[in-house]
C-alpha cells in the first residue's frame, strides 16, 4: 500500500503542476456560475431581441432551467474535457519511460493503475461538485423556493459516476494502445456504442447512458428511480471491469 499512496501523492502533484487542476477547476467553476445565470437571463435577453409577440411567448425561467444548463454543460463539455485531460496519463509514462525506475524498485503495476484512477477521480469529484455547489447556491439565490430533493442528488451523482466510468475507460485505452489517441478512441468508441444501444428499449434501462441523458426526467419524476439505480449499478460494474482489465493488461505488458 505504501507504493499506492506514494504514487497517488505523485499523481496529485503532477495534476497540480501540469495545471490540470487549474483547468478543470476553472472550467467547472465557470459552468457553475454560468448555469443559473444563463437560465435566469437568457429569456430576458431573447425577449429584448425578438419581436413583441414572440417575446411574450417565452416562458418565465424556473429553477429547473438552471439544472437543465448544469446537466447539459457537465455531460457535454465537462465530460469531453475530462476525457481529453486524462487520456494521456499512461502514454506519457510509456513514451518517456518514467515508470521503469519506480517499477524496478517494487511499485506494483496494480498500484499504478489504481493510483492514477484515484487521483483523476479525486480531481473530477472536486471540480464537478464545485460546479454543482456554485450552481446550487446561485439557483437558490435566483429562485429562493428551490428545494434540494433526493432525485436531484441522485441525478447529480449519476453524472459523477459516469465521469468515473470515462476515467476508467481512458486508463484502459491508454494501457491497451500505449498512446493518448488510443485512449480517446476507445473511450469515444464505447460511449458511441452505448448511445446506439440506447435505441433498444429492452436493455435501455440497464444502459449507463441513462445516467447522463435522463437527469431532468428523474428530477421531474418522469423516469423511475429504479431505472437510474440499475444503470448506476451496471456503470459501477463496468468501471470496475475496465480497471481490472487495465490491471491485467498492464501486468502482461513487457516494458
Amino acid at each position, binding site marked *: 500500500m*505504501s*507504493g499506492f*499512496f*506514494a*504514487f497517488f*501523492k*505523485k499523481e496529485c*502533484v*503532477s495534476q497540480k*503542476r*501540469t495545471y490540470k487542476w487549474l483547468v478543470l477547476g476553472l472550467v467547472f467553476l465557470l459552468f457553475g456560475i454560468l448555469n443559473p445565470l444563463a437560465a435566469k437571463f437568457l429569456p430576458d435577453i431573447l425577449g429584448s431581441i425578438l419581436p413583441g409577440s414572440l417575446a411574450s411567448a417565452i416562458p418565465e425561467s424556473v429553477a429547473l432551467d438552471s439544472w437543465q444548463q448544469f446537466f447539459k454543460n457537465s455531460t457535454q463539455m465537462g465530460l469531453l474535457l475530462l476525457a481529453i485531460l486524462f487520456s494521456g496519463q499512461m502514454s506519457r509514462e510509456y513514451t*518517456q*519511460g*518514467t515508470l*521503469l*525506475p*519506480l*517499477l*524496478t*524498485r*517494487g*511499485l506494483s503495476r496494480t498500484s499504478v493503475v489504481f493510483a492514477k484512477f484515484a487521483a483523476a477521480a479525486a480531481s473530477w469529484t472536486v471540480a464537478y461538485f464545485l460546479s454543482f455547489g456554485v450552481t446550487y447556491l446561485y439557483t437558490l439565490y435566483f429562485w429562493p423556493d428551490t428545494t434540494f430533493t433526493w432525485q436531484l442528488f441522485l441525478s447529480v451523482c449519476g453524472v459523477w459516476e459516469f465521469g468515473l466510468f470515462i476515467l476508467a475507460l481512458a486508463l484502459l485505452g491508454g494501457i491497451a494502445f500505449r498512446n493518448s489517441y488510443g485512449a480517446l478512441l476507445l473511450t469515444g468508441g464505447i460511449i458511441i456504442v452505448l448511445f446506439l444501444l440506447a435505441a433498444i428499449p429492452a436493455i435501455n434501462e440497464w444502459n449507463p447512458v441513462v445516467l447522463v441523458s435522463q437527469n431532468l426526467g428523474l428530477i421531474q419524476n418522469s423516469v423511475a428511480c429504479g431505472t437510474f439505480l440499475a444503470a448506476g449499478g451496471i456503470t459501477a460494474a463496468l468501471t470496475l471491469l475496465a480497471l481490472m482489465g487495465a490491471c491485467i493488461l498492464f*501486468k502482461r505488458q*513487457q*516494458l
Partner: protein
Amino acid sequence: MNALELNGISKQFADRPVLNGIDLAVPEGSVFGFLGANGAGKTTTMKLILGLIKADAGSISVFGETVGFGRTPSNRLIGFLPDVPAFYPYLRPKEYLRLCGEISGMPKSEVQARSDELLQLVGLAGENRRIGGFSRGMKQRLGIAQALLHSPRLLICDEPTSALDPIGRREILSILEKVRVKTTVLFSTHILSDVESICDRIAILHDGKILESGSLQDIKAAHPTNSFLLTFQTADDQARFLAAPFLSGSGFRIETPDAVSIILHTNSLEQAELNILSFLQQERLLPRKMELMEPTLERVFLEVVR
C-alpha cells in the same frame, strides 16, 4: 558468491532472436563491464535481470534469488540506472528521491539522510530546480542517486556514459569508482575506454552470445599482441629505420602515429625482435623507447567479434 547469474538465457522479439542461450556470472564486489555493439542485446539482458520482460528460456538469479517476469522481489537488492533516465519534469530532485524511497518502503528519516548524502555524492546537493530544467549530465547523476538510494548490493547501469560529453563521462565514472567499495556494479557500454578505466571483469556480447567473459587482465593475456612500439629521438632517425631492408618483407605492417614513432605489427614476434635489434646495432640507432605493446581492449573486442 556471485551477485548475478544467467544460465542459458534466450530471448527473441517476434522472429528476431536477440539472446541465444547466454551464460554470465558476475562475482560479488566486481565492477563488471558488459560490452557489445549497439543492438547486441545488452539492454534486453538488463531488462530480463530486472524482470521487466520475459525470457524464452533459461534462468536468472540475483544473490541466489530467482528472477521471474513480474515477480521481482530480488529487485530490492538492485539499483537500476537506465541509459536515458527519465524523470517527472515537474518534481524537484529531493521530491523524486522521496517518492523512490517511499516506494521502496524506506523510513522517512532514512530517505532524508540518504537523499542528502547521495545528492552530495553526485554533486547536486544545492540543486532545488525542477528536474525538467536539468542538463543530461545532471539527470544521469540524479539517476545514479535514485539507483543507490536503497543501498542496493548490485548496481545495474545501462550505458551510463554513452550520451554524455567528456566531462559528464568523467563525473559518472568517478561516481561509479566511489560506489564500488560497497556495491557490485554491472555496467553495459560500447565505450571501451570507460571499461578499461574502471572495470575489473568483462563479458563481450555479440550476435546474442557471450563470446568472452572473465577478468580484464586474463582476457587481454589470452589475446597477446604481436606489435612493437619504437620511439626515436628525431624524425631523421625514424626515417632511417623505415628504410631498413627487412621491413620490405611481407611479414610486417607499419604505422607511423607521429613524426618520431613507429608501430610494427608482425607475424613472427621472435624473428622481428632479432631483426630490429640487429638493425639498430648495425645502424647505431638508439631509440628513446622500444616496447612490446599491451593489447588494447578495443583490439581484443574487434578480434573477438570478427
